[in-house]
């Protein structure tokens, strides 16, 4: 089969690789019909995530048709159309039973590597380094899905791939980001990052009752799209000072809830801090650039909540802990527990409350994945989200 393989930093190759085989009795094999490129895939592309190996298949947002099931899979049949969560979860450990699917205690065979960096290991993920399991991803014609009796969501044919694909990752992630904030009536919610996850967080904040939503980004096309689809008020951080803008917009209080949908490759307009973070990142003294997170913490109102759904891998410098302690801030974060949100969010799509396909800007064949990554990274051609068709 053909698959998009990571060959090194900014080096991708769509090439022939063996077809997947069942390895465990609860596996299924899925023929991929649609798959997307995620913002977090760019961290892999840019060489910022350790433990990648040449030849690793990328991709963790995918859906398709079940073509083979293992002997212990009782609730899926060949022919079922499924969306697959990016988190691999056994369903049986204490974490899965508590709904914390992204920290499944069993699904990472390489847990010992993750423990060194993170303290304990999270769940295995599709296509996201050997530290997180060494599982091939879904930017391919076929994918092996472990614990197929727990993860995949069967979807009926009246919804298009584009409408449901993002249940695999970015819609639940954005929704969880808003949910973690514990939005109260009258709340003003500010979201850093007007990319697909950020926009879905903004839309979700509205569904959860936010009175006003503010979008912070530097690309006018992204701010425009966010405003058009979620009613978010735009703040362009290259044209205005964010802290000032937020003070003005909230009459001095600061946003009640702040969502960091940017993560470790934050860009910032303060050249000195940008240079500091980039230099330390290159010298591997600091693994992540937390500019959006710092700003979210510093501008959040006293007693407010900062919800972090941007991807972070390791360690950050200059963390404003003083602000957190002195101003009663709550910081909440998680790698999305996708399985928990699949059915409730599918219902919202069915009810017409939201159509996540609004984030899509480009569709291209799998073979053009390398060009797609470049387009996505460089934000060319008003690129927001690329769907690949194998």
């Amino acid at each position, binding site marked *: 089969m053909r*698959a998009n*393989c990571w060959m090194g930093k900014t080096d991708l190759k769509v090439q022939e*690789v*063996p*077809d*997947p*085989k069942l*390895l*465990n*009795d*609860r596996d299924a094999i899925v023929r991929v019909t649609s798959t997307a490129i995620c913002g977090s895939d760019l961290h892999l592309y840019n060489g910022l995530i350790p*433990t990648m*190996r*040449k*030849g*690793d*298949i990328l991709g963790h947002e995918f859906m398709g048709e079940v073509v083979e099931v293992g002997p*212990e899979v009782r609730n899926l049949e060949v022919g079922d159309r499924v969306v697959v969560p990016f988190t691999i979860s*056994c369903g*049986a*450990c*204490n974490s899965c*039973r508590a709904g914390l699917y992204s920290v499944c*205690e*069993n*699904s*990472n*065979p*390489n*847990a*010992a*590597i993750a423990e060194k960096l993170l303290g304990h290991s999270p769940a*295995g993920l599709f*296509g996201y380094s*050997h530290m997180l*399991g*060494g*599982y*091939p*991803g879904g930017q391919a014609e076929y994918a*092996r899905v*472990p*614990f197929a009796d727990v993860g995949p969501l069967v979807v009926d044919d009246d919804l298009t791939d584009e409408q449901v694909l993002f249940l695999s990752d970015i819609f639940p992630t954005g929704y969880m980001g808003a949910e973690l904030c514990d939005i109260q009536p009258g709340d003003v919610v500010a979201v850093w990052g007007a990319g697909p996850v950020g926009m879905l967080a903004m839309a979700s904040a509205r569904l959860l009752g936010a009175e006003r939503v503010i979008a912070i980004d530097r690309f006018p096309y992204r701010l425009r799209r966010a405003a058009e689809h979620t009613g978010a008020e735009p703040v362009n951080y290259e044209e205005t000072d964010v802290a000032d803008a937020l003070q003005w917009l909230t009459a001095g209080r600061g946003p009640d809830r702040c969502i960091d949908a940017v993560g470790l490759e934050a860009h910032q307009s303060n050249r000195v801090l940008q240079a500091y973070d980039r230099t330390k990142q290159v010298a591997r003294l600091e693994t992540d650039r937390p500019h959006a997170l710092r700003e979210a913490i510093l501008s959040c109102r006293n007693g407010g909540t900062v919800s972090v759904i941007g991807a972070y891998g390791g360690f950050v410098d200059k963390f404003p802990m003083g602000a957190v302690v002195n101003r009663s801030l709550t910081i909440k974060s998680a790698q999305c527990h996708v399985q928990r949100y699949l059915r409730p969010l599918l219902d919202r799509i069915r009810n017409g409350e939201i159509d996540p396909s609004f984030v899509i800007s480009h569709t291209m064949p799998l073979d053009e994945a390398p060009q797609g990554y470049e387009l996505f990274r460089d934000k060319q051609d008003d690129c927001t989200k690329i769907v690949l068709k194998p």
Partner: protein
Amino acid sequence: MQARSAVTIRHPVEVVYGFWRDLTNLPSFMNHLESVEPSGDGRWHWTANAPAGTTVDWEAEIVEDLPNRRIAWASVEGSEVGNSGSVSFTPAPGDRGTEVRVELTYDPPGGTLGKVVAKLLGEEPQQQVSDDLRRLKQVLETGQVVLSEGSPEGTRFLRLLRQRPAQPVG
């Protein structure tokens, strides 16, 4: 050489104790073991995988057996590879299942056999025990040792250092 590790498994003590007490189950989660079979008279014959397809074996007996609480075993006098171990089972707080604590001691002989023992335990006996318990948890909670294309044998210390690419196994 001493090593110890612990894990929490979401099953009642009776289930976890029962699984371990049947020592023939040990190779299903202890990678370095090829087989453990009863040899009569309360003794057990252990066979471990050694480099170059060879094996090392010894006789051991259960020296302590407190049902649902603790099992201890030791190789008999004169074994090539002196070793002993114990495992204790405690209900985990908050209804989370069973806490399993393992302690192992190996007295590696000198010479070639010593090197063989060192090799089959890996550079890190500590990591070996931790890996064993991780696999035990997977077997009891999910039914099997969990495999990935990067680690197609499942959790294994030596494999961590030499991952297969994350592509289907050919």
